[in-house]
């Protein structure tokens, strides 16, 4: 019997799944690695810890579930978070930690470039929004502020490229991750000279560019032995978490269906044969395979905002019991009328990306009156997070019409939230409970590579039939009314967001 293993290098850790060839899960395991915030805008991870955790979890799943049942590993397919940057020297040794997508140190660079003509051009060519998350700007930042690292860097890698290089010795980067670096021309699929010039590097400082189906070399001998895998075990370079979540949700190229992810952060995505053009530079366009782009908008404020709310106002009858505290809040929220009796929440606690792209944006409760109670705040918080998701979907629909949605991610798939999404969007929402879209996407990619499916388009329908949440017209009408104010406030408060952001910085207390 053969199996397919997928490895997701995510924001908080690694997830390894083993599937049989039909896509049924044999086993899954996870391993955490830590994000360090050594300075306010910094967000870093230890590359060796990521590598060792990968090795550890992979070894455990093989020893506990795969080898005892005599499965043969047909392939190991990687996917990873986008936008990470790791500098390595000419010995391949990391210089400092890996910088994650959430790192904001390049905010000044981003602001300047975003409002310039060359910035606009780079956005059109590379498909990556001009934002501190983009490796283009992170590398430029290193050039401006960390000459020591800049001068000694032989290559700038993504975390995935580093882990694969440790395992096989090959420096490779796939189209999807590459198209999220801000350095790739997504139309010609080559590194873009103007972007390289802006970052101050040359193309040979980046990993070799390859399609997502590429074999990324052979496992080093020692790893063949410690993992007990044969030398010919196929290591697939794979794709990015965003592209895989979309594929794993059963989205087909050109279909009038959008995929929504609401995990800690979130995104709304569509898949099509062409890129979305946008004067206001609100959307990303990432390359999955030739002539197939995953386009959409990301948000900073998803399930993490409800988690924040729970930490502040949850009961926590048992220490650290986030889950039941959240559950309790959700039950209370369900008993509040649709629209929270006119209490609105702007969820921009972490600044915001799509659609307003305003790093200064902040949160607010609006419309508070004397009759509002604690429970209204709970529901308003959830509604606010989902209004923000809707505002991305709404701007996307200006360019690509959709008639149904597929929803994934730990926060989105809470039934209460799924129903709200259906009502707010006024569209049917497909949800698969206990389903991990990113890993399943990586399974579909591997299976397609093996010839089980003729193409990714053929693979998409293999995704299991979902539960469907149908929109309720009465509720939609209420949400639509409130959303108009939500949208207005989000734009109107721009000046005040900046003013309060500046004051928050001016009077900042050191974090204890």
């Amino acid at each position: 019997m053969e199996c397919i293993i997928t490895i997701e290098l995510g924001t908080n850790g690694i997830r390894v799944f083993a599937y049989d060839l039909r896509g049924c899960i044999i086993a899954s395991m996870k391993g955490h690695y830590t994000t360090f915030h050594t300075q306010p805008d910094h967000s870093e991870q230890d590359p060796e810890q990521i590598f060792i955790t990968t090795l550890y979890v992979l070894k455990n799943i093989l020893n506990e579930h795969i080898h005892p049942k005599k499965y043969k590993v047909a392939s190991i397919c990687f996917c990873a978070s986008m936008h990470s940057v790791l500098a390595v020297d000419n010995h391949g040794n990391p210089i400092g930690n890996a910088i994650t997508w959430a790192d904001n140190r390049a905010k000044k660079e981003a602001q300047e470039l975003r409002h310039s003509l060359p910035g606009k051009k780079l956005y059109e060519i590379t498909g990556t929004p001009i934002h501190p998350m983009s490796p283009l700007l992170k590398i430029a930042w290193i050039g401006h502020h960390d000459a020591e690292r800049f001068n000694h860097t032989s290559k700038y890698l993504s975390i995935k490229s580093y882990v694969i290089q440790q395992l096989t010795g090959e420096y490779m980067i796939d189209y999807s991750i590459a198209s999220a670096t801000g350095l790739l021309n997504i139309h010609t699929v080559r590194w873009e000279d103007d972007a390289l010039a802006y970052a101050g590097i040359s193309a040979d400082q980046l990993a070799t560019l390859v399609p997502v189906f590429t074999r990324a070399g052979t496992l080093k001998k020692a790893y063949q032995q410690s993992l007990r895998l044969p030398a010919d075990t196929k290591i697939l370079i794979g794709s990015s978490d965003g592209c895989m979540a979309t594929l794993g949700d059963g989205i087909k190229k050109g279909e009038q269906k959008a995929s929504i992810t609401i995990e800690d952060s979130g995104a709304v995505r569509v898949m099509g044969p062409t890129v979305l053009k946008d004067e206001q530079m609100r959307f990303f366009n990432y390359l999955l395979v030739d002539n197939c782009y995953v386009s959409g908008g990301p948000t900073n404020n998803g399930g993490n905002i409800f988690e924040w709310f729970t930490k502040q106002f949850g009961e926590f009858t048992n220490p650290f019991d986030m889950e039941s505290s959240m559950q309790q809040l959700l039950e209370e929220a369900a008993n509040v009328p649709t629209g929270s009796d006119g209490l609105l929440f702007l969820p921009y606690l972490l600044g915001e990306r799509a659609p307003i792209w305003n790093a200064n944006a902040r949160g607010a409760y609006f419309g508070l009156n004397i009759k509002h109670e604690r429970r209204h705040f709970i529901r308003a918080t959830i509604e606010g997070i989902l209004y923000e998701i809707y505002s991305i979907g709404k701007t996307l629909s200006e360019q690509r019409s959709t008639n149904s949605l597929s929803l994934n991610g730990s926060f989105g798939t809470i039934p209460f939230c799924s129903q709200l999404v259906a009502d707010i969007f006024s569209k049917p929402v497909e949800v698969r409970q206990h389903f991990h879209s990113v890993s399943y996407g990586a399974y579909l990619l591997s299976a397609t590579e093996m010839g089980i499916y003729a193409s990714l388009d053929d693979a998409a329908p293999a995704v299991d039939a979902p539960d469907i949440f149908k929109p309720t017209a009465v509720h939609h009408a209420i949400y639509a009314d409130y959303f108009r104010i939500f949208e207005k406030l989000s734009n109107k408060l721009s000046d005040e967001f900046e003013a309060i952001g500046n004051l928050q910085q001016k009077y900042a207390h050191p974090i204890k």
Partner: protein
Amino acid sequence: MKKNGFIQQNTFPTTVMVGLRIYHIIEGRFEWRINHQLYVFYPGDVALIMPHTPFGCDNDVLKIGSFSWIHLALKKQDGYILPGKWSGLSEAEAAAIGKILYLNNVPILSRFEEAGRIIKCIYTELSEKEVAYQARVNHQVDELLIQITRKMTQQTHSTRDFPKTFTQLEVLLRQDLAHQWTVEEMAGLVGMGTTLFTEKVKSYSGFSPINYLINIRISEAIKLLKRADISVTDIALDTGFYSSQHFSTTFKKLTGYRPSEFRKNHLRNI
């Protein structure tokens, strides 16, 4: 115990002492500087001054009020404080307490009446000298150290945000990877019992606390092995393995390489 009825010059100059100093405020409001930082103490609060830390008040003048205090002469081991022979704590427990106090190093414990009660009891025992008073004092001093340690970790770690707590712990572990951390010490550092701690670490990280720690140790070891200038034995000890043998076995089990092979291989590929 001190009751200060009137303000007097030079009554409270800044001093540095070898022992651990514990002050419990009974009445009044005091502004004291501990390690050059100003803190305000109200009744019920406890000031905790670690060994070799400057402590006093500005202008050297003590305000009106009263407080009780105790100075404890402690041993020092590997840079951490350790109670003396009088203590009934086991070696491991004493080490854990010393480490937790040292690493958290919080000079103010708020609303901590329990400490005042214990200090008062010690005072009474010492002045009345009833039968077995020495044993009673020893018990009470242990009790005080235990209560202070628990209070400190509970005060510094919320019981809501496990990811944050876990990250703080990892930072502390990485600062002293050479130390032979026990689960009890790790749990104690973040104010948790070992049962809850082990369960939470497992569900959050996917690893048992000890395996997670091994992860960090190996990650750090890999970094050092990639540099040619530190011996494998030194790396083993620096990253907290008992011996180079223990390091070698653990490293090989996970990576398939012995540390020396890993290094040779890595340097050859350059």
